[in-house]
């Protein structure tokens, strides 16, 4: 094992050792994640959608970081990934729009995605767009947290 370069130890950034918190977080985080995904996919039927889901998902990450330290959280979800996923979400969103354009419809005119079954087309279109939103929001929230935490 190569020794990591000696760094200034920052409590709360590099570690966390509170057993109660750790255990509680371990209990909570799965549920938060599931809830987040639920809100995400439920968005086209009821209250919910990408933005809320993104925030909930990101809150799971932030909770993990608060309990286990930012460095471990970042090992779990490196910044390289969030840096890519954040724009990727928007690309999905805008991409759907461009695809509808290319199919001959208006921007975000989902019907043209599957002209035979416009209902499905609407569902798919919205699902994709919301997925993009969720991805971006979650990544951006995590990025903001990291950005502030690192300082």
């Amino acid at each position, binding site marked *: 094992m190569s020794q990591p370069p000696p760094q200034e130890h920052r409590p709360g950034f590099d570690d966390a050792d509170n057993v109660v918190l750790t255990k509680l977080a371990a209990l909570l985080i799965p549920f938060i994640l599931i809830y987040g995904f639920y809100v995400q996919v439920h968005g086209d039927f009821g209250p919910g959608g990408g933005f809320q889901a993104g925030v909930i998902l990101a809150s799971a990450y932030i909770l993990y970081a608060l309990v286990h330290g930012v460095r471990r959280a970042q090992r779990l979800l490196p910044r390289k990934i969030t840096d890519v996923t954040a724009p990727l979400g928007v690309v999905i969103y805008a991409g759907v729009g461009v695809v509808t354009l290319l199919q001959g419809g208006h921007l975000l005119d989902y019907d043209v995605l599957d002209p035979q079954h416009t209902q499905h087309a609407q569902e798919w279109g919205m699902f994709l767009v919301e997925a993009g939103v969720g991805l971006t929001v979650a990544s*951006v929230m995590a990025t903001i947290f990291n950005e502030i935490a690192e300082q």
Partner: protein
Amino acid sequence: MLGSINYLIYVLLMMIGLYAAIAKHNLIKKVIGLSLFQTGIFIFYISLGVVEQGVAPISVDAPTRFANAFDHLAARDGADPEALARAREAVEEVLHPHADHADHGDSHLDVEAPETVAHALEAAGRELPADQAAALTELTRRDRLIVDGVVRPYTNPLPHVLILTAIVVSVSTLAVALAIIVWIRREFGTIEDDELTELELEVNNDAKGGEA
């Protein structure tokens, strides 16, 4: 008075927020004030959404489809004109339920309106085709809001959607503000507004001194 309590709250919140944003020296407190200020506006928007006897504006197709069908039916020969007139009245009732009653503050809606349409048409010797009947049903799905013949306040979803967007915007603003404040703290060593002003002046003077 109580009816407009939302509006009172919104004004109060806005004013508290604006006061904090202007009068507090601590940048974080200012940001909190700003958020309060925006929250006040959100409450305003949400209050807007509550429309007594409102009609869902999103249902674009159903009224159109129904109205077209009705006209098509009415245009055919051999109908009893009086019954048709009654039916038309009922249709108006379905499409614009608030048109007659809103002025009187009467919250009773003719829940039977769809049925009246059907009956009147029947009397006129017409029967609604299946798809038009479906459109009519779709239209009257609103009756879920009618409990015991009393129309419950109906909530327009549009302001909610809008305000959701506005919340996203305000969260982003908050994030940017916090990020900048963190930077400020690192560069200047303080987040008190008055101290910052002094520090800025010092930078100014340094620059002038260097110039001379």
